[in-house]
Every structure is written in structure tokens, then in C-alpha cells.
């Protein structure tokens, strides 16, 4: 009986943990190693930005 009770409390704790809605889940952090090309060309055509 005591084991069941402890298991119940642990399950309740984990449920609260998952439902708390404030789990610090911000941020991604993927390392994307794709070269960006030459951004110097952005300086061309400033009058053509719609």
C-alpha cells in the first residue's frame, strides 16, 4: 500500500511538471552551416524596395 501511495505522488508530481506551462521552452540553437552569400549586393537597388 505504501509503495502504491509513493508511486501516486510521483506520478502527480510529474503530471504537474508537464502541465505547469512554464517549462522554459524557448530557444532552438540549430547549427546551420549554409554559407550566406555576398550580402554586399543588398546595397544595390535601394530605390527598388517595395
Amino acid at each position: 500500500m505504501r509503495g502504491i501511495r509513493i508511486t501516486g505522488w510521483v506520478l502527480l508530481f510529474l503530471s504537474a511538471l508537464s502541465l505547469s506551462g512554464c517549462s522554459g521552452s524557448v530557444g532552438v540553437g540549430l547549427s546551420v552551416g549554409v554559407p550566406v552569400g555576398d550580402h554586399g549586393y543588398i546595397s544595390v537597388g535601394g530605390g527598388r524596395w517595395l
Partner: protein
Amino acid sequence: MRRPVLDTARACFSVVIVVLLAALPSGCVSPSGKLDTSGMSFSSEPLIGKIVWNDLITEDIDAARRFYGELFGWTFESTTRPGGRPYTLARSGKVYVAGMLQVDARADGKRLSRWLPYVSVTDVDSAVARAAAAGAGVAVGARDVSLGRVAAIVDPEGAVIGLARSRIGDPDDSTTAPGPGRVVWTELLANDPQTAAGFYRSVVGYEVRTIARRGGQYTLLMNRGSDRAGIFKKPADEMQSVWLTYFGVDDPAAAAARAQALGGKVLLPASPQLREGSMAVVTDPSGAVLVLQKLAS
């Protein structure tokens, strides 16, 4: 003899204690410390098509922290990514606005520093599959991170964008309201805007609306009536198609001058010919491009 009322009260008290104990740390613990998201609110349903996060991929994280800290008043928290690699979270006031991670420079000298937006999708894996079927490359395959499930693709014109499905909902529109140092818009400069719009409609599920603007056609990517991103024809053929991230400032010309003083470079200064002086395009010290957008008064 046991008293039922007392037992019930004791059980209720215990439940409250357990919930509080669970909520306190989960509220907000990053792998390396406390992460306080109390200044943010999240939607109960995913906001499909919304840019829900932005990462700066940089070859010089120390210079980036100085630059954005001085330019936007951001503060920073050091955390770790899966695998224990460093990851910096940037805050504007009480809101986490971006992440920053350092990458090693390539041996061939090609630059990697960029702002990378993440768009909310219903299902990352199926979105990646649709993108690949439509001619996109997969820069990083679908995987689980603290936010949820994410991936990064290279669209058929070569512009890179992330896909995300958050575990806890997306930052709602009040959390991401425009302000100084906040991301206020995201825009694709494409060689063929209509084809690009069709690609993102099929991958993300956008509604597409084209409007007349400044003598040309500007394409809005929308969902449920909200404008989520824009596309227009890149002003120069030589330019690589690119997703640009816009940050709110009070005075684009002054902010651009400040960016230059902080080690950045001005690519397009604010001028009457450039959207009536409402923006400037600069790079940070490691070459990542960003747009400084005048906030509506």
C-alpha cells in the same frame, strides 16, 4: 479512529504542495540556470505561419553580445543546447527575443553568420517532406530541442528558414508586440516572389495575398487574417535570396550610425528613397544582416 474530513484536507494540502514544487522549478529552469518566462504568454494552439523564434548564428558570439546589448539594450543568459554546446538567450525586458550560437568559421572563408527565423508549422516532419518534394534542401533534419521539434530548410531559391512546432504553444501576439529591440517583421527577398509564395503556401499552409505597393507588387503571407511575413522581388539580381529579420528602432538613421560605431556595417542607409526613410540595412560585426525598422508612432 480516522476522521474523513481531516484526511481529505490533508490530501488536498499535499496535492497543492506537490503541484507548487513541480511548478517552481519547471517554470523556468534552463540547463544552466533559472529561465524566467513569466513575462511571456503562449497560445493554446500553434500560430501556424507566425515567426515564433529567431536565432543568430554567428562566428563571433562575444562581439555579437556586445553589439546587440549596446544597440538594443538586450541582456543575455548563458544556457546550453543538447550535447552541452553553449547557447545564449537574449532578452528584451522580460521577453526572450532571440537565441545566439557560435559556429566555427569555414576553411574556405565563406561566411556563415546570419539571422535565422523559425516559422510555426503544424508538423515539422511532414513540412520538411513537402519542402524537399518541392525542390528545397534540408539544412538540418527534424529533431527535438527545448522548444519542441524543429528543422531548417534551404528553399528552392537558396534562402534558409527554420520550421518549428512548439511543445507549449507559440508566443502570442501580445508577447511579440512591436517595440524597440523586438523583431517586428520578417521578409523574403526572392527572385520569383509568386513561385516562392507558392512554395511557402504548400510547406507552411499560408494564405497568399498580393498588394500593389510603391509601383510594384508585394506579397503577404498570412494565416487566419494575420500578416505573418512578406515577399518582394529582390532589388538586385546578383543578390542571394534571403530571409531578412526586422528589428524595431525609434530612429533608423541613428540606429544605423550606432550599429556602425559598434563594429557593424551599413549596407543601406536610411534615405527618403528607401521606403521613405523608415528603415536601414546593416550587418553586425560578424556579417549577419539585419534591418532596422522605424516603429510606428
